[in-house]
């Protein structure tokens, strides 16, 4: 099966006063109808990778790649007008904090229907029905009330569900979720993840789940990419995460305090310069 999204040698660079800063340095992966986790610490380039796919890297940042294809069609550096048609309709993004992603002066219903009508050209009534269906799909008990509510009238967890509903309304092929649950409490987090998981599975979407939380990604995703300094240092099936071989991945896993394994001192990650440029330790799928 051909991948939904295919990336080869993605690079994102920003000019700075002291030369060029490479935020992403040659990232390659294929995304199928699966849940792909992208893990790394701040500055690893994981978010920038997501933004580059959506064409959201602002100048003076520059994006280049040998290949960036959605269903076999290049989406690299498309003009903004074409990109806008893609965004939302075929690729959607859920951001970290719903507080900053929802327009505070528009009702939730209007925000969902607006995006949907823009991409689908449906009537207002159809869009309203779709929005209510979506709100129900993200397990909001009282969709009518939430439809007419303003963002400040709902909780953070509900806001994140609304974001997901909004992003999934036009039935995109790919959902990019950038730390979608970091601002949420654990109980809410698990609910939101379940909803996202179900929707992605039912609709056969590809999900790119960007997170700093190794354990969560290990439990939630099918496949994991570990990024360090703008590169993928290791790629492995999520259930194999605890058998990771790269010293960086191992270091990250060991530095986490765990309830089931008390330690006197936490292991501290000793960063090696060689990780920056060393070759990836796990072979990528064929065609690389």
């Amino acid at each position: 099966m051909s991948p939904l999204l295919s990336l080869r040698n993605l690079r994102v660079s920003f000019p700075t006063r002291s030369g060029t800063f490479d935020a992403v340095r040659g990232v390659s992966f294929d995304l199928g109808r699966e849940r792909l986790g992208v893990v790394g610490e701040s500055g690893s380039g994981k978010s920038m990778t997501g933004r580059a796919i959506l064409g959201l890297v602002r100048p003076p940042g520059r994006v280049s790649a040998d290949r960036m294809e959605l269903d076999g069609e290049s989406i690299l550096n498309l003009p903004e007008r074409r990109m806008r048609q893609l965004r939302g309709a075929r690729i959607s993004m859920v951001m970290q904090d719903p507080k900053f992603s929802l327009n505070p002066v528009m009702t939730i219903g209007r925000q969902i229907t607006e995006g949907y009508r823009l991409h689908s050209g449906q009537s207002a009534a159809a869009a309203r029905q779709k929005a209510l269906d979506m709100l129900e799909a993200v397990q909001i008990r009282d969709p009518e009330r939430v439809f007419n509510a303003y963002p400040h009238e709902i909780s953070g967890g509900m806001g994140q569900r609304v974001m997901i509903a909004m992003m999934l309304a036009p039935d995109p092929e790919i959902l990019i979720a950038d730390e979608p649950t970091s601002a949420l409490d654990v109980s809410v987090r698990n609910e939101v993840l379940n909803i996202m998981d179900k929707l992605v599975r039912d609709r056969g979407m590809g999900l790119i789940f960007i997170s700093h939380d190794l354990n969560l990604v290990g439990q939630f995703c099918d496949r994991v990419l570990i990024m360090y300094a703008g590169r993928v240092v290791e790629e492995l099936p999520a259930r194999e995460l605890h058998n990771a071989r790269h010293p960086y991945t191992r270091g990250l896993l060991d530095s986490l305090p765990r309830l089931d394994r008390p330690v006197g001192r936490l292991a501290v990650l000793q960063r090696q310069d060689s990780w920056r440029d060393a070759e990836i330790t796990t072979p990528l799928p064929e065609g690389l």
Partner: protein
Amino acid sequence: MLTVRDLDVWFGHPPDRVDAVSAASFSVASGESFGLVGESGSGKSTILRAITGLIGTWSGTITVDGQPVTGQHRSKAFHKTVQMVFQDPYASLHPRHSVDRVLSETLHLQGMDQIDRRITALLDSVGLGRGFRFRYPHQLSGGQRQRVAIARALAAEPRLLLLDEPTSALDVSVQAEILNLLSDLRRERGLTYVMVSHDLAVVAHMCDRLAVMRAGRVIEEMPASALRAGTAVSDYARALIAASASYQPA
């Protein structure tokens, strides 16, 4: 070292009064490390702010080192005994003050002598070294900023340190470094910690005892071993532990 009895904390006036903490009671022995856990809005950070006088609208009794405190005003002796480390190291350092300025002003306010020597010693004790003395916050990483914030809290040589989610804004590898630093400092200086966190694993690692909070109330107090063993009594604490331990696909 610290006793909190029947603490109520509220914001605003009736009819818009919001009760952030209701009838919270706990006590922390000298040299102990005590954790306050709960989800956002459970009132755990609010308790720290009431203790330090950053919030004045509270009732109940707070006793620090045998001395009761009142309202919003705190004595000089209180500031020498109790210090606090804030959650977000990006917000807790003045953007225009260099590390040197932060520490020298703090030492000056606390009436310390030999300020120059003390700054060097403080920087060494938080693992920064004197090379960092003249940097501004924007020249520091998140972990380095939190080390500066810890140095600032230690400047008065306090005995009780209130830690408000000190590592939740940091990467996991940096979190490990900061937690290790806090453990070392506690051992070396015999400090008492009250640590607020939403991360149960962090609290289990750092604390001897903890209180689980929900909607402003202390639901349950337990030793860290009970947290690890999952032998909490209340349903809520059990659910919280289960939810934190792992994500189970539905």
